[in-house]
């Protein structure tokens, strides 16, 4: 039966498609293959979602080797939740990617771009779905290596240096994760995550276990760009090709936050994670730092992509905040924010992709008065922008609402002030863009280098993202109920 092989197909399909792009060496074919593969992959994740709703968890023994000896793919509600986010974004981004990629990447490298893109998708899906700690490390490295490669494909030469810096940071992070996995293996003698969590619950609390925990958290913090280990992120998002920043902003950091949640709640169990060396207080301080620092830096940027990158650092802070509250509501708020922010930020970055495609620049000053020439792009930017501020009837409002509710329930009044203050900062940085585009007189000699019309498919996918932003702000049952169920299962495990 094909349905029993779906977990393997989820990862194998993009992996097999990647070399096909090189073999056919044709940019249109590569793009079509990318769209096709992401569509099928999205279909698979929907089928898995249905299976999980019926059976609760699915385990898949890779190659017929039974866990804990073989590599196991472990799928529960949280897994399918993340698979849907990553696949959904992959479908919509690759749909609108074609013209922008041809515009921003030199034509003899386009097929290589799609190869690396598919490998990146493979890595991210693998990280989500695997139930084996060492396999997790391998998939993390597949995802990271391919993202260094696609970042370095841009025409702006600064992207090379950004990619190199990301490579150095990322490799240190991955090495820390590897050390942690090694130490856990010494203590327990197993690599299967489900087995590990059982063994750890029975094991004596030694320094080795704590060291492994610290190494893992620091490694993931570097990979997920959690403040203050975010230094690679602004450069990587600013100088890489727009489609790359779009896809990475929506998926990579979220997937690594997911790994952190899995690690804290499923593997170590939150009793160990949080009642140890007051780790939760540390996380709350880090989260507040990220929120304030990211929003503050975003205000001062002229480059739109850089602005959104700093805003991402702030939003990652929100997700960490939800995790650190150690309540069902807080964890659910964090999961809802992962879902909503993925679609908000991709919507914003996709609008910037369209702007760069039309005007060849993302400098706010040079975009003065451009809303008259391309009204649709800026309206769609505005919708996602309102969502990131947290205006009611947008999805951003829902996640901030639950986050504030969770902070109040946990008794942290100060956090509510910080969240509201950060929203005010968001009004300022999104407001600057809107002010420049709508209310400033059209700059006369702005080099409107290539005033091209937005491609239809890019417009379509941008429109869908804006629609999702509004839809999730009004009809919340889709992700909120799911997030609460997942949080309930994780806390009461």
């Amino acid at each position, binding site marked *: 039966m094909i349905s029993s092989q779906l977990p393997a197909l989820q990862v194998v399909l993009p992996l097999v498609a990647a070399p096909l792009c090189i073999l056919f060496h044709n940019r249109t074919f590569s793009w079509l293959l990318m769209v096709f593969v992401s569509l099928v992959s999205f279909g698979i994740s929907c089928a898995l979602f249905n299976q999980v709703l019926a059976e609760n968890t699915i385990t898949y023994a890779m190659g017929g080797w039974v866990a804990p000896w073989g590599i196991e793919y472990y799928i529960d509600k949280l897994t399918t939740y993340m698979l849907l986010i990553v696949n959904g974004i992959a479908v919509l981004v690759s749909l609108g990617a074609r013209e922008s990629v041809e515009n921003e990447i030199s034509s003899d490298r386009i097929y290589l771009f799609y190869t690396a893109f598919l490998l990146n998708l493979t890595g991210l899906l693998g990280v989500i779905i695997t139930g084996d700690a060492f396999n997790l*490390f*391998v998939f993390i490295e597949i995802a990271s290596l391919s993202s260094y490669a696609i970042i370095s494909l841009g025409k702006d030469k600064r992207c090379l240096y950004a990619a190199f810096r990301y490579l150095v940071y990322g490799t240190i992070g991955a090495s820390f994760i590897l050390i942690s996995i090694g130490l856990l293996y010494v203590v327990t003698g197993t690599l299967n995550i489900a087995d590990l969590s059982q063994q750890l619950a029975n094991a004596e609390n030694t320094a080795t276990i704590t060291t492994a925990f610290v190494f893992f958290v620091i490694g993931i913090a570097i990979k997920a760009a959690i403040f203050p280990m975010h230094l690679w992120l602004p450069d990587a998002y600013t100088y890489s090709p727009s489609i790359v920043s779009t896809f990475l902003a929506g998926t990579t950091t979220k997937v690594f936050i997911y790994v952190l949640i899995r690690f804290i709640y499923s593997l170590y169990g939150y009793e160990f994670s949080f009642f140890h060396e007051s780790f939760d207080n540390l996380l709350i301080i880090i989260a507040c730092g990220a929120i304030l620092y990211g929003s503050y830096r975003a205000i001062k940027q002229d480059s739109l992509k850089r602005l959104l990158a700093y805003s991402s650092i702030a939003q990652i802070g929100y997700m960490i905040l939800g995790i650190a509250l150690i309540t069902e509501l807080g964890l659910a708020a964090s999961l809802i924010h992962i879902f909503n922010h993925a679609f908000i930020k991709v919507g914003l970055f996709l609008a910037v992709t369209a702007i760069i495609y039309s005007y060849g620049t993302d400098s706010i000053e040079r975009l003065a008065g451009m809303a008259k020439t391309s009204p649709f792009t800026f309206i769609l930017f505005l919708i996602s922008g309102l969502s990131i501020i947290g205006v009611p009837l947008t999805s951003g409002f829902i996640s901030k609402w639950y986050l504030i509710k969770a902070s109040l329930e946990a008794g942290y009044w100060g956090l509510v002030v910080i969240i509201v203050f950060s929203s005010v900062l968001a009004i300022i940085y999104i407001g600057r863009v809107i002010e420049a585009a709508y209310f400033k007189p059209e700059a006369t000699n702005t080099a409107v280098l290539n005033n091209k019309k937005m491609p239809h498919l890019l417009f379509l996918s941008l429109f869908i993202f804006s629609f999702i932003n509004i839809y999730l702000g009004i009809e919340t049952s889709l992700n909120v109920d799911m997030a609460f169920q997942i949080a309930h299962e994780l806390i009461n495990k």
Partner: protein
Amino acid sequence: MDILSSFNYWIVIILMMIGFYIIIANNNLIKKIIGINIFQTSIFIMFISMGKVIDGTAPILTDSGTLYSSPLPHVLILTAIVVGISTTALGLAIIIRIHTAFGTIEDDKIQQKIK
């Protein structure tokens, strides 16, 4: 517990710190990659040391021994070495392109040119 009994692990820590220092302090991008390599090598040694069982023989099915060293860390490290080589290759490829684009592989000079 004297130093000699955990000699491997001291080497791991020393190598790791040497690698880390090179990554942070060295200005040359290729030397940074070498630093990453030393850093990763220390982890390989750590894994392989963990696999050793005292008085255990090589994990081959023969009549001569009943106690075997754990072969799993070796297998894991083979994979980790492959990952390390890919990282090095990619890093060097990017450095070549940095050299053609900027004309230098010194960190501070590139940062000056970016600004």
